[in-house]
């Protein structure tokens, strides 16, 4: 009787140890996926802002549009990367600035200018597409972390340690008029 208690006690301990090490490794992997995805998004947002600055300075847009774009882009480049909420607002502003600046006439004008306008527009389009991708991949990773960290075992044993619970990155990044040939 005694012995079987000991055996099941040891088995239980082994099981818990297994669970802890496995769960911790799984969470660790998920957290590093989020960190990786966040740094990718960060880099793509910088690229988008730089491409927008280039667009503002290319001379193919009217002065007012150029000024709106330049101000939104430099806000983005100077944003405090640690403050996610304000950064989300700044990046959505940049999207909206692109949306108002790139009206039908401006787009036609840029596309016709094969030397400067078209390639710059192409860079903005590509950069925005990559922002969309990077944001979606980040949010997928964040959702996975949040789901695993909600599990009772993970919460009870504090497997996540002191790591902050990551949040999805919510911005408007739709620029339908740029299209993608679709």
């Amino acid at each position, binding site marked *: 009787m005694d012995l079987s208690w000991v055996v099941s006690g040891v088995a239980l301990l082994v099981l818990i140890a*297994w669970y802890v090490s496995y769960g911790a490794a799984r969470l660790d992997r998920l957290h590093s*996926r989020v960190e990786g995805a966040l740094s990718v998004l960060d880099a793509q947002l910088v690229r988008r802002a730089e491409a927008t600055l280039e667009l503002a300075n290319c001379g193919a847009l009217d002065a007012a549009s150029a000024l709106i774009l330049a101000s939104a882009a430099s806000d983005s480049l100077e944003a405090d990367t640690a403050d996610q909420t304000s950064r989300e607002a700044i990046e959505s502003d940049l999207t909206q600035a692109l949306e108002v600046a790139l009206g039908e006439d401006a787009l036609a004008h840029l596309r016709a200018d094969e030397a400067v306008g078209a390639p710059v527009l192409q860079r903005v389009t590509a950069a925005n597409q990559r922002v969309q991708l990077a944001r979606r991949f980040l949010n997928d990773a964040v959702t996975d972390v949040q789901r695993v960290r909600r599990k009772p075992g993970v919460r009870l044993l504090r497997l996540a340690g002191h790591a902050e619970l990551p949040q999805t990155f919510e911005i408007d990044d739709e620029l339908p008029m740029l299209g993608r040939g679709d």
Partner: protein
Amino acid sequence: MRIGIVSPYSFDVPGGVQLHVRDLAEHFISKGHHVSVLAPADGDTPLPDYVVNAGHAVPVRYNGSVARLSFGPLTAARVGRWVESGRFDLVHIHEPVAPSVSVLALWAVDGPIVATFHSSNLRSRAMQAAYPLLRPSLEKISARIAVSEDARRTVTTHLGGDAVVIPNGVFVERFASAPRRPDWQGTVERPTIAFLGRMEEPRKGMPVLSQALPHILREIPGVRILIAGPGDPDDVREKMTSQAAAACEFLGPVSDEDKARLLASVDVYVAPNTGGESFGIILIEAMSARATVLASDLPAFSRVLHGGDAGELFRNEDPVDLARAVVALLRDPARREQLAAAGRERANAFDWSVVAEDVMAVYETVVFGRPPVRASSEPDSRWGRLLRTGRNSGGT
């Protein structure tokens, strides 16, 4: 970039996923990337030199149909060796939940992983039963791609999270350059329409076309129906009026070349499919060949045809509406020409050069600043993890 692509299905038999993998690999190779494809195959099948044999494929009944899959310890070991020797910047796994090389690769790899979901029916009992086991390895995927809106919906409802939609590609030029065949071309008196696909499969729409034929023949008695695809012509003729049966010409299964020539030659290509299509690759092939397309208004078809700009739509499963549309098109050469031109233009959006660029954008986003792929680092990776996952599944 060094790219490793994993196909779960054997290259011995043609299929949508295999073709997708082959086309993608060949496109990236032509762009100067290093590509290695891991796929099951039988020992004596000649394989393209970029394909690595993952092991013998066994026909298995899975998810309602028979697939040729490869699994077991020997295959797992080959997958491990392929990952170690490949020095890939990223691994792109197709159908990551297919119980074959894909699942094994997902377990064996650490690092940048892209996964493409093709199927729009994942909801198998096996999938749900094994879900706790698969979950942790699915969490390793950095980027998910779905080939259609329907496949994406499957991903979001069954796996959670989201997926980027990047459709299948078509080598538009292969179809655009197909020569016409005079005996398949229509005349004013004897116009031609074409149907492609398995005729005994009702969802391909042969019954709808059969019912529409008497109405069409009443208006245009000389019309010829060219039917290409596997199936028994007598079964089809049985269900038609004798006049309709006489108007049909059965070509049997056709080669890729003849398919392109048929599409290029006929006056109207009809796709009366009644459902179950997640994506209309055949419509894109037809548009590439400059065919005038008439298709049922399934959501997938309507999207491909840009809501009717690049081809005519008729009410799904409505033979009378189909007949009306066929007759109107056959009597209006200018409209046909206009649709064919718009379709040819539209097809460019689905050319591999465009589609593969989108895939490359995903690759670049995923590998950005990350170390390349390595074999799973945990010492007792596969079986140990399998055991442990099994034990803690109660908590999920």
